[in-house]
């Protein structure tokens, strides 16, 4: 294996991050339970029925919700369909390659999807047009444009905004089986706000909203979703290990952070 300057810098940076954490500091000057600033871009960027382009620090994601109508799944005739997909675009990082979603992309998509589903944030039963016959199908396509860490939280926030903004033409299934698409719009009812919070463990300390370098250094990582009743509604422990106290501690920090992020989301929808 060739030794190059990039690896050297990386090793130095690793030690630098760890040293800082030992002194209760972070590379970008944030507190351990402080999120990076969130910016929601103005404008129309897609042909989706609902969309959001957000920046979480230097991480940039674009989420679009496309709608369609179709038959419900046979085992859930009283529920609409939500399909989530994440694309780690090669534009976002020199380490992302073109091709179908890899295990990381699929995990992220499922973590976001699980938070939304577990809190029933969009009310899947409200997507039913005619039980057992016709439902709305929402495709949540999550695009990562610039990867500077914590894609889970950025994509969850963008997804909630995009879903909350989603407007679809009203559809009626007539008795003769004909489908009528109306001019009138039907708006997705965002009834909960399950927000993911990701922590990286470095030197035994929990850092909220890690940047890419902190993610790379972390000995463990975990993502927890908090719903509007401040309950933990979904968890994904990623690499490494945590003590029980650490996880309870993380859930507490996430609970405290919820309203701040939820308010921001409500404001921009």
């Amino acid at each position, binding site marked *: 294996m060739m030794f190059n300057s990039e690896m050297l810098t990386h090793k130095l940076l690793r030690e630098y991050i760890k040293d800082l954490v030992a002194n209760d500091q972070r590379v970008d000057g944030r507190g351990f339970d402080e999120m990076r600033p969130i910016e929601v871009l103005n404008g129309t960027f897609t042909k989706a029925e609902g969309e959001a382009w957000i920046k979480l620090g230097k991480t940039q994601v*674009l989420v679009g919700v496309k709608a369609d109508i*179709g038959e419900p799944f046979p085992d859930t005739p009283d529920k609409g369909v939500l399909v989530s997909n994440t694309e780690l675009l090669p*534009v*976002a990082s020199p380490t992302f390659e073109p091709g*179908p979603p890899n295990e990381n992309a699929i995990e992220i998509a499922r973590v976001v999807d699980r938070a939304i589903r577990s809190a029933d944030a969009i009310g899947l039963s409200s997507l039913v047009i005619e039980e057992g016959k016709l439902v709305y199908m929402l*495709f949540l396509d999550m695009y990562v444009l*610039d990867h500077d860490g914590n894609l889970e939280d950025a994509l969850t926030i963008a997804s909630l905004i995009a879903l909350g903004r989603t407007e679809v033409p009203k559809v009626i299934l007539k008795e003769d089986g004909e489908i009528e698409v109306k001019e009138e719009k039907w708006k997705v009812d965002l009834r909960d706000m399950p927000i993911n919070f990701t922590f990286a463990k470095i030197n035994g300390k929990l850092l909220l909203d890690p940047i890419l370098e902190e993610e790379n250094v972390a000995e463990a990582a975990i993502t927890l979703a908090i719903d509007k009743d401040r309950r933990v509604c979904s968890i994904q422990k990623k690499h490494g290990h945590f003590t029980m106290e650490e996880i309870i501690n993380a859930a507490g920090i996430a609970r405290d952070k919820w309203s701040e992020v939820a308010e921001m989301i409500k404001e921009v929808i």
Partner: protein
Amino acid sequence: MPLYVEKKPDVLITEDGVRTDGRLPHEIRPIRMTVGILDKADGSAFIEWGGNRILAAVFGPREVHPKHLALPDKALIRTRYNMAPFSTPERKRPGPDRRSVELSKVIREAIKPAIFVENYPGSVIDIFVEVLRSDAGTRVAGVNAASLALANAGIAMRGLVAACAVGRVENFIICDPNHDEDMWGDADMPMAMLMESEKITLLQTDGPMTDEQFKEALEMGRRCIRFLYEMQKEALKRPYLIVERSVFEQGEV
């Protein structure tokens, strides 16, 4: 099942040459170019052109993986044109299709003549064109964006490549066809030029034109491309503009 049904407009162009979006034959849709919007890419550009939203990013020159693809005497140029699932009225399934494979090749062949490939032997330059929102003319918008992203990445180039489409609706030669004209017009001709010598590096035609119409279309294409080239240069300079102010103005703030 489709939620949206498209209808062909009754009149594509009036006798006076007014088009479905109110433009005259020689008018281009509004354009905005921004350079360097991504942090991790070596170069990037975002172009908003009519209803199009296109993001281009460049990585490299960097090591080639897999290694056997490396060329000993020059850089390997790879391009990917990709449409987002939410870029079209009906959701597009993610992943390459025959159209995007062809467009990737065409865009690469439009851009490559501009790059001093011999400056970077054994390495690769990756160009990614992501269509976030499509509204006719994505390939030419993609060429403009890719060219800007390469310049933003500091890749040695002979010059910028600028591109624009022209077309024919009935007896009118029009520039920058919109969605309706792209769908139901009579001819469509995307073109790109390496501006240092005004050599044509991309030319495709879909639809018949007489000898006279073809010449008129080429001439209109060149005029549009020159206009786009001026915009490109301005977009590239913008981040480096020097702000100057006389000290005597201070009191008036």
